């Protein structure tokens, strides 16, 4: 089938769409990293999933109009990338269940050194108000 002016333009447009789709998909994790400070966005992964879903849709749209291999590869890549990120986000980031201390029990006493090496006891604060202990993973 002769490559008409029209179909060349269609190819050009679809090729452009495929490239935009790839960029949008790759922008997903980048946007997520940039917006980590927002607790809701970080927990839901919305910036990443929103952009990657858009990229996947754009990529599929480009594939619909253009059967060239490079456009199809780009379209499939978007979907695989979205799948890999979804797996990483939900599965790999999962933490095991814990037997954390129960509500209503007495908080175990402790004495630990603070960042200046000074010993700090939980008992130091008894009666002085509520105490919030935040446990960090470690290895900063």
């Amino acid at each position: 089938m002769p490559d008409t002016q029209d179909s060349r333009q269609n190819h050009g447009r679809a090729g452009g769409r495929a490239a935009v789709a790839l960029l949008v998909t790759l922008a997903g994790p980048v946007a997520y990293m940039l917006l980590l400070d927002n607790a809701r966005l970080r927990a839901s992964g919305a910036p990443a999933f929103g952009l990657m879903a858009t990229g996947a849709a754009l990529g599929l749209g480009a594939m619909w109009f253009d059967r060239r291999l490079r456009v199809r590869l780009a379209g499939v890549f978007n979907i695989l990338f979205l799948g890999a990120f979804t797996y990483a986000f939900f599965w790999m980031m999962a933490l095991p269940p814990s037997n954390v201390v129960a509500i209503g029990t007495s908080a175990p006493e402790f004495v630990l050194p603070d960042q200046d090496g000074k010993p700090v006891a939980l008992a130091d604060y008894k009666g002085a108000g509520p105490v919030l202990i935040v446990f960090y993973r470690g290895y900063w």
Partner: protein
Amino acid sequence: MEQSGTLLAISVDPVGDNSRVANKNRLDFPILSDEQRDVVWEYGVLHQGAGPGGSDVSLPAMVLIDCSGTIIWRHVSQRIQDRPTPEAVLKLVSTLDS
């Protein structure tokens, strides 16, 4: 919003590392070093083998203790990126009498 109470952070890192983190981020609350993992274990938030080289670390968790020393709330993250928001925690603290 002013709220009375004490914030303590506990990590398994050595004092030197906690000092560096405190200075770098200008943190003005105690960061306690639990290198033996004793306290992390007692509070039930030990994450075995999850650290570099298979070492034990802590699960990301928060425990709220009232002035009588009783645990009145706690949260353990189920995914690494999940943390209670400061607003949610402050709201909890504000419901306490003392």
